[in-house]
Each structure stands twice: as structure tokens, then as C-alpha cells.
């Protein structure tokens, strides 16, 4: 069930462009699927009028916490990133559809994240591992500063890195990593900038691999009411917030 809840910030880590926010609710958490997102209320200021959709990086039911990785891209994300310990954030969650879990427990799964798109890949990897799968991460950024929380990813599965400037891992794009030649995968999950996801989708199609992407269209309500965040698909315009954000590439027109 979707809920409006105040979460208190109990832990925070900051990097140049992104922030890790560990948020605790007073109430037990709703059931959250990997790939779902939250709508964060910013404040009532003129330039931050609407909520900001942010993907869920991690969930801990026992401690009633969710974790967000927020990239500073504008006034809204700056204000959310500047939240101080013990301050609360008003959050609507869980929203949208999550990633599909493979039926075959031996399926080889790879999770491809780019930039702040690495955020939902961690919780997905954790859930897949709990289900007995062995997730492999391919994470990319412009430079090493984009790649945060790598220790956490490594605790869940093998991590392969690319950076555009070569400051960490192999130089190039995620789709150019040598791991694609060395390993065979049955399922690709991806989240990141659209050009990256398009490249990943092409790689999946060329190799006949099932692939799900997590989209990030501009949205207002996050509930499927305003019809603003539509993606044009084989079924026509569908709301990314309600029918997505996770979509199978077979449904997309790109």
C-alpha cells in the first residue's frame, strides 16, 4: 500500500555531487520491491513546488529505514541533499513497479548502473542474492567521483567498473567492459542516463538477453494521475510512474 510518511534522517554521507541519506520511519515499513521509488517533498518554496522522485537504494525492515542516493542536479535535489541529521523528509512510497525476479535460480544476472543510476542496483542486487542468485555489477561513471558506496556493492556480488576518463576500472562505457566477452548472462537490469540504457538495450538485443530498464521521465504526481511522465511504447503512451519505472526493453520504442 502507498503511504505518506515522515522519515527522520539518521545518517548522512556526502560526496562532491551526491549524498547518501539513511532515513528512518516511526512505523513499520510498507513492502518495497527493488526498483520502486519515492516522492520526496522538498518545501513550499516557489522553485521547488513539486515533489522529487528518487529511487530506493536500500531497505532495512528491521530498523525501519530506507536509503536514498541523491545527486545534486538542481534546487530540489540540493535542498534534499542538505537535509540535516534529525530533520524529517515527507515521503510518498513505495511507487511504481519493481524489477522482475528471474524464475530460474541459476540465471546469470548482471546489474548495469551508470552515474546516480547505480542507486537502485544495490537493493536489487541484495534482493537477488537473498533469493540465491549471484548478481554481477557493471558500474560506470564519468570519473571515479561518480562511483560511490563500492564496498557495499562488493559485499553483494562481483563489481566491474568503467569510467570515461579511466580514473577507475576500465576506460570507456559500461557496454565496453571486457566482462561482456568473458561472461554470459541471462538477464540484464539497468538504470542510468538514457544514452547508456539505450546502449545496454542494444547489447541485450544483439545477444538475445532479457533486459529491464528503469526510466526517469519528468513527473508531477508519481501516482499515475497527471499523465505527465509518459513513455511512448508499443502500447502507446504509458506512465513511467505507474507502469514503470521498470520496463522490459521489448515494450520500448528505442
Amino acid at each position: 500500500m502507498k503511504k505518506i510518511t515522515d522519515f527522520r534522517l539518521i545518517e548522512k554521507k556526502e560526496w562532491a555531487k551526491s549524498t547518501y541519506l539513511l532515513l528512518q520511519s516511526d512505523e513499520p515499513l510498507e513492502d518495497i520491491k527493488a526498483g520502486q521509488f519515492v516522492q520526496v517533498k522538498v518545501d513550499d518554496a516557489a522553485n521547488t513546488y513539486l515533489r522529487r522522485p528518487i529511487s530506493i537504494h536500500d531497505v532495512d525492515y528491521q530498523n525501519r529505514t530506507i536509503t536514498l542516493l541523491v545527486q545534486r542536479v538542481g534546487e530540489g535535489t540540493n535542498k534534499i541533499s542538505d537535509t540535516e541529521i534529525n530533520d524529517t523528509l515527507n515521503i510518498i512510497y513505495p511507487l511504481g513497479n519493481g524489477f522482475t525476479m528471474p524464475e530460474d535460480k541459476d540465471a546469470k544476472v548482471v546489474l548495469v548502473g551508470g552515474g546516480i543510476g547505480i542507486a537502485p542496483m544495490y537493493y536489487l542486487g541484495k534482493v537477488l542474492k537473498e533469493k540465491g542468485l549471484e548478481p554481477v555489477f557493471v558500474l560506470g561513471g564519468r570519473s571515479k567521483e561518480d562511483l560511490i558506496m563500492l564496498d557495499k556493492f562488493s559485499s553483494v556480488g562481483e563489481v566491474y567498473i568503467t569510467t570515461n576518463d579511466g580514473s577507475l576500472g576500465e576506460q570507456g562505457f559500461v557496454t565496453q567492459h571486457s566482462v561482456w566477452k568473458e561472461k554470459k548472462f541471462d538477464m540484464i537490469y539497468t538504470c542510468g542516463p538514457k544514452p547508456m540504457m539505450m546502449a545496454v538495450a542494444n547489447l541485450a538485443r544483439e545477444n538475445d538477453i532479457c533486459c529491464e530498464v528503469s526510466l526517469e521521465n519528468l513527473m508531477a504526481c508519481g501516482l499515475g494521475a497527471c499523465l505527465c511522465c509518459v513513455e511512448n511504447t508499443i502500447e502507446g503512451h504509458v506512465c513511467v510512474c505507474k507502469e514503470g519505472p521498470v520496463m522490459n526493453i521489448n515494450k520500448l520504442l528505442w
Partner: protein
Amino acid sequence: MVNETIQLNKGLTLKNPVMTASGTFGYGEEYSDFIDLSQIGGILVKGTTLNHREGNPYPRMAETPSGMLNAVGLQNKGIDHFVETIYPRIKDIDTNIIVNVSGSTIEDYCAVAEKVNALENIPAIELNVSCPNVKQGGMAFGVTTSGIEQVVSAVRKVYDKHLIVKLSPNVTSIADLALAAEASGADSVSLINTLLGMAIDAEKRRPKLSTITGGLSGACVKPIALRMVWQVAKAVKIPVIGLGGISSATDAIEFLLAGASAIEIGTANFIDPAITVKVAKGIVEYCERHGIKNVSDLTGALEV
């Protein structure tokens, strides 16, 4: 005990003056996790046209100071889909389910109105003659008195329940249009629809909306909407339903005082999905505080 009931004409009774604006509340179901839908006066469902419409290309939304622009373009699956699939799901919600009827020709409007007329649990339609986001999206009719007269009188002939006409603010004199709607058989008017606006990404030198222009809504439009409700309420005898930027009980009360009999909440639903019930409660508290027995006594109670 404050009496919240609002009696509009033709048997349309609202349990309180708070309704939801079309296009901001889906079919109600999208909000049922957050509120008890039976606690609001009415739900204006998404604009419905004769045929399926895909709407405008993405991007359709731009945040603007204290508001947003949209250019959805009446995306909906058409009236037959509504009748067959959606109506059975929502018809027993214990509130007034009102269909917002849109079209591009008089024949389309009439065909949709006729089909809705046959639905037992739909007590009213809101005729959208004011959508700014589609070519002939009704706004062509809604910006001239003769256009309003043509479409409203034609629909009046085929629709015998409560007929609300939703007015466009993108006109010189909204009161004249309200009078035209009243003379053509409207049972009430609702206003305002969105204001035509525009947003530009200076870095990219491109418009932020695929359609270049779009409809402005949110808190920023409230003073304009309030002024127009005031002007229209003075001009017509039929009830006025006020909307435009209402985000709190105080906002709603201002519209009632300006002459609205009921109000609709739109964009504020996106920010707080439980806002409708909070506004309804806040209106009652205001009445208690001021010793007002009936919420309906607030209508037009502005002292000038």
C-alpha cells in the same frame, strides 16, 4: 455541528464542497491508499473524449514558480472504454463521480454526453470547453460566447442531468462566457481551467514542453482564479464551482467567500495526496470558529 452539505441544482448534492479537478485525480482509485474517497464531495474524472487519444508527445510537464505547466493533451482511452472498464470499478464509490467531457466537434461532445447520460451513478458532467492543450480541444468553443452557446445548447438537448460548464481563463471577459453558458442551459459553471503559459530552457534554447505552450496551474494562479470566480459569481444566478491553485482550507474558504458554492482541488493533489480531506476538515473548523451553521452560508459572504 456544522452542516457541510452543498445543494446544487438538478439534484446534485455534495456531502461537502470539496471536489477534485479533472486530470489531477485519475479515476479516484489512484488516491484510495491515501484517503477515504467517500469523504469528499465529488471526483471529476479525467477528461473523456469520444475516441481514444494518445495525447501530446513527451515532455508534457514543466515546473514553474509555485506551479507547473502541463501539455497532456487529453490522453484517455475514449468513452466506450470508460463505460465498459472504468465505470464498473468506480460506480459504487460513495461520492459524486462526475465525468469531464471533452471533444473537438459538437457531435463528439454530444455523443459522449449521451453515453454518460445513460450511466445511473454519474449525476453530472463537466463540459470541458477550455482545454488549452489540443487543437480544437474545446478551447476553440470556450473562448467565444457564440462557441459556448453552440456546444452547451447542443449538449443540453441530449443530457438531462446536472451540466457543469468548465470555463477558460484565456479570454477577455470570463463573465460574458459564464452568462452565455447559463443562457444555453448550463446548471453550473466551474472555473478556471489552466492559463495558457510557456517555459523555456535557456541553456538549450528550447521550449520545455513538446507543444511549446501549455496550461499553467498550481498556487501561482490562485489570485487570478479568485478574481474570476468573484466576477462570474456576481454575473450569473447558477452555482459557481471555483478552482485554481487551491492548496489549503483557507484558500478554499476564500473561493467560497468570493461566491463559489463548491471548489475543486487540482495540482495540490500531486504534492499532498490527502489534501482534499484536510481541506474539507479545515472548512468545518473555520465554520465552528466563526459560529457558522452551514458551509453553504459562506458562499458569497465576502464583505466589501
